[in-house]
């Protein structure tokens, strides 16, 4: 199917007259190789974009070859997220575009709601149907009963649509399944969340403490690059992970902690740092409140106490605490990103925030810098109608500190067992694969079955599309305009996405879909443009640039308004907390009956024969979205189950033996997984990469390859402060014989 560049040169030169025809013939005879991919007569072009394979959103260039086909995608040198270098997923991102398994046409379910049969329909039919359904459901239950599950840049357009329609029920897995507890813990402590990319000054740091954060496998580009730069400068890394992660192997200290006991270690560290007077006295005195209470509180949490819980020796705990203090304030106790682990996550992240405060790293070079964003004017659009209720009202008692939509709360409101009045009756799902991303899939599906209407906007036929009444095929980021990327960084900056190609098949950009649906709902005023490029051009002109300029630049940086990347010497900055100070002790938490100072709570343990299921990232994949990508499945086509040799011996496992997993609730994995016997994992746990084991046969590369951690995560420990869904208290045992489950077709 793919013609190589060399073929092309031969083919194209035939069209160029006799002289050119002769060249390949001459080459054939003289053996002059022409394997230089850049030579040739055609024109190579490049098109600005920012990567959508994960939410680091690195800016780069999509290259077209002389044939006008996609060639490669390369980072933009001026982009602070990528510094001109994409991660493997970004580099292989062109596979998203190339994938022939993509959704090609709008689909409508035929027959019963549980049927898996779809017919292709036209875009007009799809939009007419959707608009009619929205009106009908809006009339029956109120416009608020329509919710949007979203992830990714193009979800803004549908967010805009449902807001215009009168619903504020939007949520994404990036909060309650990801960084929710972290954002709230930092807001409670420092008065602001960390956002993305996290304002970590890793490149100038002298000590980096990673609690689980598996940089190098977690390929968040800027962080990996800065960590590497810091390694060159001799940074000392302390990694706390029950698994010998990639970064553990680069660390001065690897603390092979017993899973689920991090809070004990953190408290012991705080204990040592306070009791050995290693904390930043001046900083704490001037900028924080509650130190005395904290000091008193942590007296009980000695390293000896923590040893019994974490299996980390007291002298190591002391030594690492001193290592951090030695580097302070150029030290980062990394806040992590996927923070929803054990349901006490706000508490863990509070301990991390407090530790950073004690070390004085917030607002300091080599610690946390003060990020700044570019300011873009809003494209004019009428004010949104005010909804009568929102997601918080589904269950007002729950998750008082959640500041963003909680997916699982919306699922609660959608579930047949919901007793409240604020019911969700229809879903839009864009760019998130809910059955795989939200734990307790069974409950998600029950909520889905309870809906009157579901629209899924996706690029691929993933699990979630199988539950839709209407499936809308979105084109990939390589084929569409989206909003400018405006994310905080050291320097304010913006990045542009332009389509490098016409959308393949009949796929379309989300902005167009949202606009077409809005027109049918009489909400056309909210989408007052012909093409999304009009919006971008207008916005850019307001800030002294233009679409044309940005097409050439890709990324534009702006000066910071103030010289406040770090706190100035002697400055007493004000924090966004109620007290205006760093809150070591949180009155706010106390007022809701939560521990105002971090605590350690013992977690459930596996029974004999069971192992804790832990999961993480592969550097070459992003969740379930890349596990059918032709470029990236090439690098890794399945996940394997990491098993310690001791355990393997007990079970008489061989490398690559196929086994099935059964969890504590009797759920057996649908597919088998190959065993990888490795010392890199503890004997009480097993490990796998999230995102594999696709169940849709239309995913020709991903179907049945490895297994999905999500299907085994049926026990969810919810973080009561933020609503984050802790997923690491699931235990599995091995099934060596095929449990004979029929594969659903």
């Amino acid at each position, binding site marked *: 199917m793919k013609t190589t560049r060399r073929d092309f040169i031969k083919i194209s030169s035939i069209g160029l007259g006799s002289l050119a025809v002769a060249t390949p013939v001459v080459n054939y005879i003289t*053996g002059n190789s022409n394997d230089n991919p850049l030579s040739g007569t055609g024109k190579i072009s490049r098109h600005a974009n920012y990567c959508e394979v994960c939410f680091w959103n690195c800016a780069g260039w999509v290259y077209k070859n002389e044939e006008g086909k996609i060639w490669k995608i390369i980072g933009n040198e001026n982009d602070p997220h990528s510094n001109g270098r994409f991660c493997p997923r970004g580099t292989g991102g062109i596979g998203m575009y190339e994938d022939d398994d993509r959704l090609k046409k709008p689909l409508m379910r035929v027959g019963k709601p549980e049927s898996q049969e779809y017919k292709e329909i036209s875009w007009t039919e799809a939009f007419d149907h959707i608009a009619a359904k929205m009106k009908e459901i809006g009339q029956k239950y109120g416009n608020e009963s329509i919710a949007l599950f979203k992830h990714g840049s193009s979800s803004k357009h549908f967010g805009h649509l449902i807001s215009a329609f009168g619903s504020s029920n939007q949520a994404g897995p990036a909060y309650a399944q990801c960084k929710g507890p972290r954002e709230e813990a930092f807001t409670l402590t420092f008065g602001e969340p960390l956002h993305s990319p996290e304002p970590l000054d890793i490149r100038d740091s002298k000590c980096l403490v990673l609690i689980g954060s598996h940089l190098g496998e977690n390929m968040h580009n800027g962080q990996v690059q800065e960590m590497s730069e810091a390694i060159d400068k001799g940074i000392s890394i302390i990694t706390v992970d029950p698994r010998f992660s990639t970064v553990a192997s680069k660390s001065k200290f690897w603390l092979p902690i017993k899973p689920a006991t991090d809070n004990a270690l953190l408290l012991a560290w705080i204990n040592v740092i306070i009791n050995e007077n290693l904390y930043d006295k001046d900083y704490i005195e001037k900028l924080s409140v509650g130190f005395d209470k904290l000091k008193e509180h942590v007296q009980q949490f000695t390293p000896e106490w923590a040893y019994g819980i974490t299996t980390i020796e007291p002298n190591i705990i002391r030594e690492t605490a001193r290592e951090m203090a030695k580097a302070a304030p150029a030290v980062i106790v990394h806040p992590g990103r996927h923070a929803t682990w054990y349901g006490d996550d706000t508490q863990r992240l509070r301990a991390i925030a407090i530790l950073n405060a004690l070390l004085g790293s917030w607002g300091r070079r080599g610690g946390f810098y003060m990020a700044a964003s570019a300011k873009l004017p809003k494209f004019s659009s009428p004010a949104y109608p005010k909804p009568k209720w929102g997601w918080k009202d589904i269950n007002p008692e729950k998750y008082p500190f959640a500041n963003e939509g909680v997916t699982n709360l919306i699922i609660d409101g959608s579930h047949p067992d919901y007793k409240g009045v604020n019911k969700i009756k229809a879903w839009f799902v864009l760019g998130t694969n809910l059955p795989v991303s939200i734990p307790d899939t069974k409950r998600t599906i029950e909520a889905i079955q309870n809906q009157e209407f579901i629209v899924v906007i996706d690029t691929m036929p993933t699990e979630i599309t199988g539950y839709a009444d209407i499936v809308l095929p979105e084109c990939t980021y390589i084929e569409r305009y989206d909003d400018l990327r405006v994310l905080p960084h050291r320097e304010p900056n913006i990045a542009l996405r332009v389509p490098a190609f016409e959308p393949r098949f009949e796929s379309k950009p989300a902005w167009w879909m949202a606009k077409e649906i809005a027109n049918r709902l009489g909400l056309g005023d909210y989408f007052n443009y012909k093409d999304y490029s009009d919006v971008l051009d207008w916005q850019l002109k307001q800030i002294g640039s233009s679409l044309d300029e940005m097409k050439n630049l890709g990324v534009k940086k702006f000066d910071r308004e103030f010289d406040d990347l770090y706190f100035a010497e002697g400055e007493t900055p004000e924090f966004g907390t109620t007290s205006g100070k760093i809150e070591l002790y949180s009155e706010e938490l106390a007022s809701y009956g939560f521990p105002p100072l971090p605590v350690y709570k013992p977690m459930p343990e596996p029974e004999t024969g069971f192992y804790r299921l832990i999961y993480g990232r592969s550097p*070459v994949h992003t969740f379930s979205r890349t596990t059918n990508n032709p470029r990236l499945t090439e*690098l*890794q086509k399945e996940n394997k189950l990491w098993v310690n*040799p001791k355990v393997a011996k007990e079970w008489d496992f061989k490398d690559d033996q196929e086994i099935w997993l059964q969890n504590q609730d009797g759920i057996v994995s649908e597919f088998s997984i190959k065993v990888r*016997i*490795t*010392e890199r994992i503890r004997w009480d746990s097993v490990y796998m990469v999230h995102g594999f084991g696709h169940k849709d046969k239309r995913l020709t590369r991903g179907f049945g390859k490895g297994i999905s951690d999500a299907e085994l995560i049926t026990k969810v420990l919810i973080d009561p402060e933020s609503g984050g869904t802790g997923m690491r208290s699931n235990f599995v045992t091995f099934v060596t014989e095929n449990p004979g489950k029929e594969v659903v077709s």
Partner: protein
Amino acid sequence: MKEELIISGRMNPNIDPVLHLWHWEIPVYLFLGGLAAGLLFFAAFYVIRDEKDRFPTAVKIAPILAPIAIIIGLIALFLDLKHKLFFWRLYTVIRLESPMSWGAWVLMIITPLSFMWVGGFLKEVFPKIDLKKGFSSKLLKLVFKESEGEVNWKWKYNFLETFEKFIIFRRKELAWVILFYSLILGVYTGILLSAFNARPLWNTAILGPIFLVSGFSTAAASIMWMSKLPEEKKWFSKIDIMLIIIELFFILHLFMGFLAGPQVQVDAAALFWGGQFTVYFGLFVVILGLIMPAIFEVMELSGIHVHISIPAFLILFGGLIFRFVMVEAGQITRYLY
């Protein structure tokens, strides 16, 4: 525990997870090349020594197999090429450092020589050819025509008649040339593998002599099998026993060399010693292909009758398996991972 993995990238067909680029074609080619070299060598040798009537099978009949073996071998080699239409590139350069290159050239030379050799004896060996009936006669008529006399055919073209006369007249000189090139051919098929130092199993100087001796031994076995004269049979039987003993001796040296070598070679040897090739090598090559035929031939020589086809077949079969085993196993052995 030590774990060593290729985590991405390398799943190149025929290379990964282990090299398996060369399949049946190369061992067959090496076998036939060695056989042809041996046959031509013996034929030329006894012409030079003026013993052509003492060993008529070796000189006149058995060499008929040589061009056939070479042609089949070349077909096998051609099949092995992955970029076949470019095979002619072989004949645009001579690269003395590359055995493949000079091997190709030797074959280029020795193929017509072997035809000449066989052609020069054709009237002696086949005085009567049926050119009257059947499909085969149509083919034969492309080069032969009917004639009168003791020999009932002539070459179709007169220049071939002239050329034949020339060959017969200059047979000794031709024998010298063939002797030279058959040795080169033998050496070439022998050292082809050992030129690839990258495979620990092949990275030994003794492999060439082993293949050379083994090729000659298969040739001797063929002659002894085809011969009807008891004296010739016996003589080649003796030659064969001698070659087998030399070969066994070389094989012993080969393994001693491996065991004294670096770890990769110890590992290579292990493939034959309790490894996956033990049965093939130990049973088929050493016992059935060398020791048993030697015993049978000694028995025959000392008067206990064993049908000559048995040792002859065993030697040929053993020789073929030997090449298969060496090519397969060699590709498995490696320096890394």
